[in-house]
C-alpha cells in the first residue's frame, strides 16, 4: 500500500506538490487525475524515489521511500509516461536486465520472459534492438518488465497512451487481475473513461493540491447533498453546481474543478 503524509515538493518558487495526504490500500486501483502541470508526474516521481521531497513522507508497502529506499524500490514497479529504454539492448535482454536488477531467479526468468513477450505480442520483436521499437512497443515492454518482478505496488503514468486498442484492453485487464491479487495500483491518466471504469477511487489534483478524492459514488453522493470544502473532500464546481449530479460523469467533475466549460465560447470564435 501507499501512504503519503504532508508531502511537499518545490521547484524554486513553484510548489509542485503541496501538503499531499493520501492513502492507497492494497489491492486498490487508484486513479490520479489533474490538468497538465498539476503535479501528478512529480507525485509519481516522489513515490518511486526519483525525487526527494522537501517535506512529508511516502511509505510504500510499509517502507519509507526516503530512508528505506532500496526496500521500497524492490516492491515498486514504475511505468513512466515516456518509456525511454536502452536502445542497444534487445527486448528480451531488457527484460533479462530488469529481472537481474530485481532479483528474479534465472529459472523464473526463463519461464516468464517468453510468456510476457507472448502476452504483449512482442515475441517476434524480442530479439530486435529497442532502437527499432515504436513508442507503443516500448510502452508494452516496460509494462512486461514490471510484471516480471511482480511488484506489490505498481505506479503507472499514462500507461495506455500510445497503445493500440487491443493492447490497451489487455493492460486494463492486467491491472484488474493484479489488483485482485492484492497489488496496489496508482495510475495517472488523462483518459477519464479509463479512470471511471477501472479505478476504485480517484483523486483530482490541481496546482499541487488534492482538490477532490473519493469513489465515483461517493463524489456523486456528496455532491448531491452537503458540499464540504477543503482538501481531501469533494468540492463545489466553479460554476457552483454540484460536482457529480445525476447522470454526469467524471469529465464534468474534472471540468468543473479545473475549468474548461469556458472554452466553449472561445471555440465558437475559432
Amino acid at each position: 500500500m501507499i501512504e503519503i503524509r504532508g508531502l511537499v515538493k518545490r521547484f524554486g518558487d513553484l510548489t509542485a506538490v503541496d501538503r499531499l495526504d493520501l492513502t492507497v490500500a492494497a489491492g486498490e486501483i487508484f486513479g490520479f487525475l489533474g490538468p497538465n502541470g498539476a503535479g501528478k508526474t512529480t507525485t509519481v516521481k516522489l513515490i518511486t524515489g526519483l525525487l526527494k521531497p522537501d517535506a512529508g513522507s511516502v511509505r510504500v508497502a510499509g517502507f519509507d521511500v526516503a530512508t528505506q529506499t532500496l526496500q521500497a524500490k524492490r516492491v515498486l514497479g514504475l511505468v513512466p509516461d515516456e518509456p525511454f529504454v536502452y536502445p542497444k539492448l534487445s527486448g528480451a535482454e531488457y527484460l533479462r536486465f530488469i529481472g537481474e536488477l530485481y532479483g528474479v531467479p534465472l529459472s523464473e526468468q526463463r519461464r516468464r520472459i517468453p510468456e510476457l513477450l507472448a502476452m504483449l505480442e512482442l515475441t517476434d520483436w524480442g530479439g530486435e534492438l529497442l532502437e527499432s521499437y515504436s513508442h507503443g512497443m516500448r510502452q508494452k515492454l516496460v509494462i512486461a518488465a514490471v510484471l516480471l518482478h511482480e511488484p506489490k505496488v505498481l505506479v503507472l503514468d499514462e500507461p495506455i497512451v500510445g497503445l493500440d486498442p487491443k493492447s490497451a484492453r489487455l493492460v486494463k485487464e492486467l491491472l484488474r487481475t493484479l489488483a485482485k491479487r492484492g497489488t496496489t495500483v496508482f495510475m495517472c491518466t488523462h483518459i477519464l473513461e479509463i479512470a471511471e471504469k477501472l479505478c476504485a477511487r480517484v483523486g483530482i489534483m490541481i496546482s499541487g493540491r488534492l482538490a477532490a478524492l473519493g469513489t465515483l459514488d461517493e463524489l456523486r453522493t456528496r455532491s448531491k447533498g452537503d458540499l464540504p470544502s477543503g482538501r481531501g473532500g469533494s468540492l463545489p464546481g466553479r460554476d457552483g453546481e454540484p460536482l457529480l449530479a445525476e447522470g454526469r460523469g467524471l469529465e464534468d467533475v474534472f471540468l468543473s474543478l479545473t475549468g474548461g466549460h469556458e472554452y466553449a465560447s472561445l471555440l465558437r470564435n475559432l
Partner: protein
Amino acid sequence: MLRLLFWRKVRSSVNTLTHLTPYERARNGAFALAGLGLLAGLYGLFHKMLAYLATVQLVGQLLLWKLTAMVMLATFMMVAISGLLTSLTTLYYSFDLKFLMNAPLSLRTIFMDKAAESLFFCSWMIGLVQVPYVLALVRVNHYGAGFFLAFLLLMLPFLALAAAVGIAFTLLLLYLFPSSRTRDVVWVLSSLSLTVLYGLARFAEPERLIRPDALKVVAEYLQYLQAPTAPYFPSWWLTAALKAAAAGKTAVLARYAALLYGSAAVVYAALVALAGKVYFIGYSGAQAGRQRRLAVTIAPMTERLLGMRRELGALFWKERRTFFRDVKHWSQILLVMGLVFVYLFSIRRLPLDNADLKSLVSFLNVGAAGFVIAALGLRFTYPAISLEGRSWWVLGSSPVTVGAIMRQKFLFSAIPMTLIALVLSLATNHLLQADRFAAWLSAGALLLITWALAAMGIGFGALFPMFTVENIHQIESSLGGFVYMASSLGYIGASITILAWPMQMHFQQRFGRADAWNWRIAGSCAVLLLLLNAAAFVVPWTLGQRTLERYEQ
C-alpha cells in the same frame, strides 16, 4: 528563419544560465575557475617553451613560426576528426530533428542550423587551448593587441573550414550508405583507414626533418624551417596571416584573411547546396532503426559466472552489451589502438644511448602515458554516467544504489584503462631497458594514476550529469569535461612532482652518492602521494555521488 533557430539556442542557453540553483552556480563557478587555472598553466608552459625557442641563435624566430604552423596543423586535424564524430549525431540523430523536419523549414536551413551546432561542439575546446599559445607568442615577441585581434578574427573561418571536413564526410557517408548496416561497416573502415594513415604518417619519422643532423647540410635545415608547413591547408594560411600581422604587412594579412573567409564561404555554400540534395536521403536512412535479430537466450550472465554480485553483474552486463553495440565506439577503439601503437613506436625511435637517460625517460613516461590515459578518460569514462541518458529512470527507480552504479562504471572503465596503462608502461620500460627502480616506480605510479583518473572520471561525470544531451561530444566538451581534464592534468603534474624526489635520490645513488636516500623525504613523499590520491579518489567521487542521489530528472 535561421535567425529564429539561432535565437532559440541563445534563449535556451540564457535560460539555462539564469535558472541555475545557487549550488549549481557555485559549483560551475568554482570549476570554471579551475579551468581558467589550467589555461593559465598552459600559458606558462607555452611561454617558457616559446621563450626558449626565441633565444636560439639565428633560427629562433624560424623555429617559433615552424612550431606555430605545426600547432595550427594539429589543431586543424583535431577539429576535423572531432567534426566527423560530432556531426553524425548532430546532423542525423538530434532530438529536435523530428520537430524541425516537420516545421515549414527548408532542408538547407535545418542543415545550416545543425552544421553550426556541430562546428561549435567540435571546435570550442580545441580553439580555446589556442588562446594561451597565441598569448604566449604575443608576450615573447612583444606583439600588440592588433595581432591578438587578428588571431581571434581568423580563428572563426579556420575552425569552420576544419569542421567542414568532418561535416562533408558525414553528409556524403549518410547519402551514399543510407542503410544502417552498410553505413556502420563504412564508418568502421573509415576509422581503420584513419588509424592506418596516422600510423603510416608516424612511421615516416617526420621528426628526422627537425633534427639538423638528419639533414645533410645546414642550408637544407634552414630551407626546411622556412618552407610552408602543409601549404594547401588552412592551417598554413592562418600561420601566414599571423606572420603578416606580426610583421605589419597589412596587404598580405588581408590576402590570407580573404583566403580563409572566402574559402569558408565557398565551402559552406557548397555544403548547403549539397545538403539541399542529399541531406534528406541520409536523414531518412538514419531514422530506420538497426534491424538486428538477436537470439532470445536466457543464459547465466558471464559476469555472474565470474563471481560478480547480482546487481553489479547485471549493470556490467548491460554496460558491456550497449557499449560494444554502438559502432561509434568501435571507431574510437581503433583510434586508441593506433595511438598506443604509435606511442610505443615513438618511444622505440627515441635517440637515447645512455642508461641513465633511458631511466629518466621511463620516469617521465608516467606523465606522457598519464596524459594519454586522461584523454581516454575524457572520451570513455567521464561520459559513462551521462550516457545512461533518458533511460536513467530505469536505474533511478530500481533497487540499486547510486554508489553501486558508480562502482560498476568505474570497473568498466578501469579494466581496459589498466590494460592500456600496463602496455604503455611495461612495453616502454622494456623498450628503454630502464633500471629496475625506475621501471617499478613508473609502472606503479602509472597504475595508481590510471585508477585515480578512472575514479575522477566517474566522480566528475556524476557531478555534472547530462542525461538529456544527444551527443557524446557535447558531454566531453561541456564545462564538466573541461574541469575533469583540468583536474586530471593537475593531478598528473602533482604526482610527477612528488615522485621526482625519490627519483632524484635514486639517481644520486646511481651516481655514487652513498647517503643519497633521505628516508624522511621519502616518507614525506609517500604521505603526500597518499593524500593526493585520497583527494583524487574521494573528493570528486563523494561530490558526484551526492549530486546524483539528489538529481531531479
